């Protein structure tokens, strides 16, 4: 991450929610509250050190309630985003509803959505003091707001994969959906009507990296694996054509296939391209020394609480 930040490339680091706590269990045992709070603070401190740029809110981030989340958001060096989550009492948006950042002359708009469907009902303690606006209507309003001001729109979605697909099918203008909640590894991202849908597995096993090469201002992207696959196909056809004993009729078919593949490859020239990589954090990422120190201190403290040394 540090190497990338120091490189010439524009880098943006984002999280689409369910960061702070494990899956919500109701009620939370009283004796776990302090430990949960300490863990959440550790997560935020680590994200500060990693230089995250923004985070969307997930249902499990509300495990300790609205006030706790508002309080801990003040410790973050990056904004918490949520475009459809409102404070019931004031009627105001709970967190910043969008963010616009410019990197290398590229204006990027980011907004975030949380599905009310992930709560068990009005009595779910996580939604106490909160109201939700329709994710679809909010998305429409956000795209209308951001489109004239930006070159690229990213949604930090906590709607679930099915709703992400539905949204991409019904609403034009969102270029990238960074999904969450389901924790599925989309190694080959789904592309629907010019929207790239991404998501990784849960519990910190994987991080992911999306590289974009923008040759023009068109909102369309193709997956670099498509080009690689076509190039491999072309090589294979050429080998067949060069084989000695092939009947002329078959050669004619291969020539036609070669022409079609070359035409498709030519059509990709000058178009915007993306490459997605899911990264196994345990195998490929170096430990960040400061974060390691924080984690070790947290673990030592937790261990002491579990096995206190009895006084002599």
């Amino acid at each position, binding site marked *: 991450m540090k190497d990338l930040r120091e490189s010439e490339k524009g880098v943006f680091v984002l999280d689409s929610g369910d960061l702070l706590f494990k899956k919500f269990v109701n009620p939370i045992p009283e004796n776990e509250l302090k430990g949960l709070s300490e863990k959440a603070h550790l997560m935020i401190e680590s994200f500060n050190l990693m230089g995250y740029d923004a985070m969307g809110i997930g249902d499990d981030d509300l495990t300790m309630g609205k006030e706790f989340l508002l309080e801990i958001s003040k410790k973050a060096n990056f904004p918490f985003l949520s475009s459809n989550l409102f404070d019931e009492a004031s009627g105001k948006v709970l967190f910043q509803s969008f963010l616009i950042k410019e990197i290398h002359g590229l204006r990027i708009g980011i907004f975030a959505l949380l599905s009310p469907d992930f709560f068990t009902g009005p009595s779910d303690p996580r939604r106490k003091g909160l109201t939700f606006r329709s994710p679809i209507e909010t998305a429409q309003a956000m795209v209308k707001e951001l489109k004239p001001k930006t070159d690229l729109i990213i949604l930090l979605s906590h709607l679930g994969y099915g709703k992400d697909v539905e949204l991409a099918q019904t609403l034009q203008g969102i270029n990238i959906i960074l999904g969450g909640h389901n924790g599925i590894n989309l190694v080959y991202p789904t592309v629907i009507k010019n929207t790239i849908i991404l998501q*990784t597995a849960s519990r910190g096993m994987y991080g992911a990296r999306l590289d974009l*090469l923008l040759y023009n201002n068109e909102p369309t992207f193709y997956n670099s694996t498509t080009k690689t696959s076509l190039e491999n196909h072309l090589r294979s056809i050429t080998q067949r054509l060069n084989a000695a004993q092939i009947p002329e009729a078959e050669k004619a078919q291969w020539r036609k296939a070669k022409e079609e593949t070359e035409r498709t490859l030519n059509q990709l020239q000058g178009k*915007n391209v993306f490459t997605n990589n899911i990264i196994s954090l345990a195998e490929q990422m170096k430990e960040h020394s400061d974060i390691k120190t924080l984690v070790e201190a947290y673990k030592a403290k937790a261990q002491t609480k579990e096995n206190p040394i009895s006084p002599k």
Partner: protein
Amino acid sequence: MVNGMRKTWFFLSVFGLITLLMITGLPSHAQKSPKTLTLLYSNNINGEIDPCPT
């Protein structure tokens, strides 16, 4: 006389070069260089502090 011709040739050459650049534009690789953006993203970390939980 010779100096005058040299000056004329020099100015003609500069004028020709500028005209050529105006017609053909800047070198094409400068225009084709794409903008790059890298997104590092995560989701559902769920308070996990060990990178590969068992």
